[in-house]
């Protein structure tokens, strides 16, 4: 049994093809609690409702910029501690820097190698579980101080 099986993930992505691959990758890692959002507004609502162990956030959304979603989450004390991995096609260094400065723990540039991302997510979730010494508690992982690109 996977040690991250009980984790909850919110995926915010407006491209159905990418949403499908995230769901596939997470299922492969044994993660069943996956909620999807196709807009920034949906991402905020889903994150506030489900208090996930991890949010995967696209930057280019139909209703608003992903960076502003990230900033809203980090300015809200009920969602501030939720780790966010940005998965974006925006590859300019200033985009990466802005997202990391706003509190993202990692920035993955699309296109990516699917299996590699799956393993990175699982490793991250296992790490926070080990750090907390128990099942990942939705919305209350240890605060992350940064992340490798």
């Amino acid at each position, binding site marked *: 049994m996977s040690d991250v099986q009980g984790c909850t993930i919110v995926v915010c992505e407006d491209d159905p*093809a*990418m949403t*499908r*691959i995230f769901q596939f990758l997470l299922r492969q890692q044994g993660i069943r609690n996956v909620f999807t959002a196709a807009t920034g507004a949906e991402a905020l609502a889903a994150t506030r409702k489900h208090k996930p162990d991890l949010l995967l956030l696209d930057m280019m959304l139909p209703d608003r910029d992903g960076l502003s979603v990230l900033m809203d989450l980090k300015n809200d004390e009920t969602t501030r501690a939720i780790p966010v991995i940005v998965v974006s*096609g925006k590859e300019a260094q200033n985009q990466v820097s802005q997202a990391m400065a706003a509190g993202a723990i990692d920035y993955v540039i*699309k*296109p990516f*190698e699917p299996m590699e991302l799956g393993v990175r997510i699982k490793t991250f979730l296992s790490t926070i579980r080990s750090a907390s010494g128990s099942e990942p508690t939705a919305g209350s992982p240890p605060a992350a101080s940064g992340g490798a690109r």
Partner: protein
Amino acid sequence: MSEIVGLYKEDARRMVREMDAAINRWEEVHAGGPARKDLRRLSHQLRGSGRTYGFRNVTRISKAMEQIVQKLERQHLAADDRTRSALVDKIKRLSKIFQEEEG
């Protein structure tokens, strides 16, 4: 992975058809209207998903398209026949990739 690649190909064919429809509204592309936004969004999405699903050439062609549209937006490129032809050529190449995959 193969179980979702088939669905991706269906999505990609639809997106290429939408690109084709957008390029046929060249006046909108020229004026920065919805057709240009569609081209930008679709090329951006295909660039991101192509190689992720194993279609490296889709990412390469879509990236070139996205760069052309970005240059149009920044007015670094004229919305003339040459630009239109370059975009049409790339849409045809994308279409061919997924037609071959279908066959």
